[in-house]
Structure formats: structure tokens, C-alpha cells
């Protein structure tokens, strides 16, 4: 196993997630997908403030111009 174990586990997890979406990504895409998911999670951190029901007072999505 050695140092590749973590990468392999991550790849397996991505394959499993992709399987839920009906996809079977080729092996050469797995590193890209792992990095992309990390970027996605990092990018979303500032948007966490919109959780907990916060909706800027416009629940109908119809702001007044």
C-alpha cells in the first residue's frame, strides 16, 4: 500500500460518487476530479453564511429594482 494508499482511497471514493451519477470516469481523470472537488469545497466556504435559512429577506427571489 504505502504512500499511494490515500490517493487510491480518494480515487475509489470518487469512482463510487461517480457511480451514483451513472458515470464511470477513466483513470486518467481521477486526479483532476480529486483536485476539482477540493477546489469546489474551498470555493464554497464563503457561501456557508447563506446556510441556516439566511436568504437576504427575499425568499421569493424577486428583488425590487
Amino acid at each position, binding site marked *: 500500500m504505502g504512500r499511494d494508499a490515500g490517493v487510491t482511497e480518494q480515487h475509489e471514493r470518487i469512482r463510487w460518487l461517480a457511480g451514483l451519477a451513472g458515470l464511470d470516469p477513466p483513470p486518467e*481523470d481521477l486526479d483532476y476530479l480529486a483536485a476539482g472537488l477540493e477546489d*469546489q469545497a474551498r470555493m464554497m466556504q*464563503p457561501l456557508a453564511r447563506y446556510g441556516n435559512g439566511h436568504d437576504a429577506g427575499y425568499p421569493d427571489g424577486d428583488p425590487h429594482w
Partner: protein
Amino acid sequence: MATRTGDVSSTEPADLGLAAARALLDARALSCVELLSSVVARLEATEPVHHAYAATRLEAAFDEARALDRGHGPGGPDGALRGIPFAAKDVFCTKDLPTEAGSRVLSGFRPGTDAVAVARARDAGGVLVGKLVTHEFACGQDVPPTRSAWNPAHYPGGSTAGGGVAVALGSALAAFGSDSAGSVRKPAALNGVAGYKPTFGALSTAGVIPLSPSCDHVGIIARTVDDCGLLATVAAGGAGAEPRPRPAREPVSLRGRRLGLAGYFTGAHVDPGVQQVFGRALDDLRGLGAEITEVPLGSLDDSAAIGFTIIMAEAAAVHAGWLRTALTRYHPGTRRFLELASLIPGQHVELARAARRALTAEMAAAFRAANLDALVMPTVPLTSMPVADMDIGRDLATYIRHTLPANLTGQPAITVPGGLTGTGLPVGVQFAGVPGRDGALLDLARSYETATGWWRRSSPKMTEPVSEQDTQLSGKELDQWPPAP
């Protein structure tokens, strides 16, 4: 080889704006066949270098032009686009040309019907010249063969890659494109022409292969604001409802008009040459009487997270079937992008939707508080760059940074030429207005356009003969794509 002088007022029919050509056709000073011949000559001269078209229908187009000159054909003698050669991005369905969206997934696809916008343009007498090159499925993950009208070593902008180039070169007088994050305004700005994204929903997207249905807009690339407005009016079908995008005939005064400037659009990410041009544009606008006011719009910093999450999630849904049945037929970059899109957690999508509502609300509040007519900004923070220097993963977010917000809020937005950098590359100035008030926005943009006259500048490259070296340029990925069947 056609030559150009750098000023469209002294050149061939292919260099005319749509409205100007229409006036000459009405006066019988120009025939539909003469106009089309000029456009086709320009197309044949430039395509070997610039590759704006994915497919053409020249013979059929000449048949239609001849019929129109005889008083036959759609639209009749008063058709708003009678005899006007136009083109459409290859995500617009067309009944008599393939619609492949730049992808082997749709190789040979012939939908047998026109997208609504294309059908309405043809019904008004417009002559469809062909289909324009697009990034695969408008995803922006591959490097198309199209090259800038201003420098054939440079990226032309996308995803309507062929649109800005064709209009700038005169191989079409106007073009339809789709715009989900700036895909009409970006190539227009980088090629020195006008690009208009109407209010969300103003133009039907029926018959346009979607990318992200809540962000997708049908947009228009043309030489002038008036030309954009005319084609938008035709594409809207004359329903008479707002927005009514065709601007007034005379330029309106900008005195007292209030334009908002947000820090998000003026940071260090903006290329120094673009900053310089935009600074002059602000001076011009002030000189015309407009009031420039700084507005706090902190939510704009969330635009990339919101936009990428929503667009990717919706694209994953659009492509779900093809990803299962035709995965290997995608370009590798598009394939990976859509695979990643398919893995985005649902909670991220919901957070992005909530953040999008907050951004829209903050934008509306800023317009109310400052009594704004529009926001003003450089359309693209960068100029076009050499294809050899491009890294899509690195550069895409910066290229769409200023155009994406209006896709999220649904605001109408238009880019007009704002001048040239010291290296001779065009820079666009974008105005983003109030949803449903497209006419007022176009009036404003037209006044700036008329006063500054930058739209008259055409590609200097076209004054030189095409060199052998120009025809051999290729992007990093072009050698690998398309793969052998």
C-alpha cells in the same frame, strides 16, 4: 485578398453595419447579391487564417439573395433584415445545416428545424451564411481553431468564438450567440465589436442547445448598438412586450445619467492596458455629462462560486444522458469538466442559489439607493492573449469575471468598443442595466458609442496579406484534437 483601411466608413459592403446596409438596400444602391458577394469574398479571404465558421451554406444563401432581389422570399420587400447576411453559433439548431455544438457527441446532427431566433431572422429576410465555431457545448474547456480578428496568433474569446471574429472581419454582418457567463460579450469585446445580452428571458432559447438553463441567454454580436437592437427586436418576434430593445433614433444625452462603479471590476486583476483604456472611457463618460458614482457591492465577490456551481450543476443535468452513452466522444477537457460537474454536492447548489438571490437583491438595492441607470466596467479584465500562452484552467475565471454577474442577476448588458491598448488590441466597455429596461440601456450605450466613435476602428491585420505563417498557427491542444475516429 480584401483590404481595409481601419475605418469602416470608407470600405466595402461587408464592412457596413446592419442598419447602414439595410438603408442602401432600401434605396436600391446595393443589391442583396452584391452585399452577400462582398461578405462571402471576405469569408473566403479570412477563413483560412481565422476559422470563424464551422459550416457554411453559400450556394443556398446566394439562391435566397437572388430571390430577395427579385422581390420574392421571406419577409417581403419590407422585411426588417431583407438581404442581411448573418450567422449563428453552432449551438443554434438549423434546419439545413448540421448542429454539432463543436462536439463529436453531436457529429452529423441535423435537427430539421431552426432555433426560434434563427427562424425569426430568416422570416424577416435575413440570409443565413453559416454556423459559427463554438467551444464544445459552450463549456469553454477546449481551444477552438478560431483566431482573433486582430491577431491570428491570439485567442478570440468564447464561447461564441466565431461570432466576434466573423462580425469584426465582415464575414457576417451580425451573429447570434448564446451567453451563459459572457460568451457573447467577451468575444465581441476582444474583437472590437458590440455584443448584447438582453434581460434574462427576453429572447427565446428554444432550439438552442443549453448549457445552464437559468443562466443561458440568446445574445447578439454586431458592429453597433443599433444593429444589436434591430436584430434583438426581430428575434423577440415583435411581441410588443418589454423589453423593447431597439434604441431611439437620435443619441440621448448622458447629462445627469448615473453610472455605478464597483471595486470588484477595477482591482489588480485588470490588465494595465485595459485599466488605461477604461480610465479614458470614464473620462469620456464624465465629459459627456454622466455622473460616475462608486457603489458597494460586496456580494459580487461571490460571483465565481455562485456561477461555477450553478452552471456546472445545470450542465451536468443537461449532459447526464450523453455522459453515460457517449463519454469518450467529448473533448477530454469538456469530459472532465462535466464529470466534475456531476459530483457537485446538492448542498453546494442550494447555497449557491441562496447566494445568487442575495446578490440579485443587493444589486437591486444598490441601483435604488444610488438611482443608477447602469453599472459600467471593462467588459473583460484581460485583452486577447496568444493561444500558446493560454491555460484554460487558469484564465477562464478571469476572462468571465466581469460578464458573469449579469447572467446571475438577469440584468441586460452590452459591450461596445472603448479603444485600443498600447499594443493595439481592442478593449470593450460594458454597461449593465435594470432588468426589463433594455431600451434605456441601449440608448445609453449608443450615446457613448456615437460620441467616442471607437466602433469605426476595424482590424488592422486585414490590411496585410495573409502570410503562410499565419495559416500554420495552432493551439496546444489542436494537435491532439479531434482524435482519430
